[in-house]
């Protein structure tokens, strides 16, 4: 275990150095959710029945979760890039704990995400979003968000090691962009036809978004929703537990085994 901690810290250091060497990349990944907040918040916010300021408060948790789900894409891209560039194989020839490399990548992503979310939240505050619940609830909301990001990154790491293709990661990027559209991240699901509402509410993004809205005090839990949305905190924890239970072992095993 101490080997894992030591090697994991070294790998975390490597990922953070990459960010330090290339800060523009991190800043660029933050421009997308911010421009979506402004665009959706004012364009859709003017067209919806909900008042604009209320919609923007509703939208901030949705975009936070949608951005966290992007961890699948970034995790996959980075894992595939390391394989492609030969970094993975170099590390696999070293006496390094087998779990340290994916763990280092996932933890580093978490640190970068946590820091990168700050400017988004500042823009959120500027357009009228507020923490309307208690401080412990707000901390719980951030904790859930980061846990979900961590779980999504692990799914991405496994996919990246499996496909070994940066192109495939790019393709998946378009798919992860679509995912929140079929959830309650940008719109309330109450008016969707029954079958579509069921699909949207079983989307993990919906449980997470509802949990964040409840904990931040931005919107109440909707009536008559599917179980994960009706019990958003338990539903979110369950989704994260399932994702981690599946993708952490798969990712570590895939890394240790290589391609043969």
């Amino acid at each position, binding site marked *: 275990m101490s080997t894992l901690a*030591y*090697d994991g810290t*070294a790998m975390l*250091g*490597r990922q953070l*150095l*990459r960010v330090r*060497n*290339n800060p523009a990349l991190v800043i660029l990944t933050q421009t997308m959710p911010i421009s979506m907040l402004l665009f959706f918040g004012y364009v859709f916010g003017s067209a919806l029945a909900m008042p604009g300021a209320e919609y923007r408060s509703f939208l901030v948790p949705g975009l936070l979760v949608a951005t966290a789900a992007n961890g699948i894409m970034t995790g996959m891209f980075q894992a595939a890039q*390391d394989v492609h*560039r*030969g*970094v993975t*194989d*170099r*590390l*696999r*020839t*070293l*006496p*390094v704990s087998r779990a340290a490399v994916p763990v280092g990548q996932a933890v580093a992503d978490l640190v970068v995400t946590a820091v990168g979310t700050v400017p988004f939240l500042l823009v959120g505050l500027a357009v009228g979003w507020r923490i309307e619940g208690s401080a412990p609830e707000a901390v719980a909301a951030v904790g859930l968000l980061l846990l979900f990001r961590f779980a999504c990154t692990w799914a991405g790491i496994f996919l990246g090691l499996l496909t070994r293709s940066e192109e495939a990661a790019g393709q998946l990027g378009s798919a992860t962009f679509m995912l929140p559209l079929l959830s309650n991240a940008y719109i309330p699901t109450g008016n969707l036809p029954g079958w579509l509402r069921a699909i949207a509410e079983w989307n993990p993004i919906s449980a997470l978004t509802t949990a964040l809205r409840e904990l931040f005090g931005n919107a109440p839990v909707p009536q008559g929703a599917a179980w994960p949305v009706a019990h958003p905190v338990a539903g979110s924890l369950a989704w994260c537990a399932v994702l981690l239970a599946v993708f952490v072992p798969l990712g570590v095993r895939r890394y240790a085994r*290589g*391609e*043969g």
Partner: protein
Amino acid sequence: MTTTYAVLSEGLEKRFGEVRALRGLDLAVPRGTVCGVLGPNGAGKTTAVRLLTTLLRPDAGSARVAGYDLVREAAAVRRAIGVTGQYASVDGDLTGRQNLRLFARLHRMRAPNERAGELLERFGLTEAADRPASTYSGGMRRRLDLAASLVRRPEVLFLDEPTTGLDPASRGDIWDAVRELKRDGTTVLLTTQYLEEADQLADDIALVDRGLVAHTGSPDQLKAVIGTYVEVVVADPDVLVPAAGVLDRLTGGQPSFDHERVAVGAVTRDSTLTLPRLVRELDAAGVPLLDASLRPPTLDDVFLRLTAEREQEVAA
């Protein structure tokens, strides 16, 4: 554990789907020597290195590297080896110094900064040390790769085609580094497509062809087996046959004709045959020469010849 061989493999096999990349590879590399694994593209050289460096698991056969079993003691093997190849590379987003520091840390070295500095100095990278590795030239990049595999002095160093794609000056740098490592007692296994490279660096050469070791020996033994290629270009197609007659008598090899270039060539294993003697004999036979040459055969010639010999053995 002390053993005579730094690398000892028996019957290593590896299959990718339908392709049998290795069909029973036997290699024995004595400690402190440089072994050149020579073969054309697709011969199985890279697969062999990937197996011996624990990146792939063999389907059959066994091997010991630095005295440790490749499969059962993989962690101990990894502590004893260094690897450089196109697929085992450094992180281009980090600087040269950051890369070496990271590897030194992963090797549990007490002073990673000092070690990184030493290696940068030794490989002439001090000036570029704080630039991202992705901005390095091909030769610098390869030197950094090599430095990264030497962070903790390995017992056995694997170099997979270390000079492929490099300009002659950079190739010379890598060659010097290999010679220096050998002087320090490091065992080196290097793969190459260039006969000249194996000849320059290796104590022993293993010729690999289609997943098997086709021949092993010192470079001189190998050259004696391979022989020298003698070629004569004449002015007039009518004198090709008398020229072939002279070649046949001098070399004992079977002359082959290249009608387009009006040339005839043959392989000789007679080391006393020199160019002046060849020219005198041809002149005496009244063959008007345009050009004559003695050159080491290309790797293609070698493999064609070895394959032909094996087929003859099978037929006999």
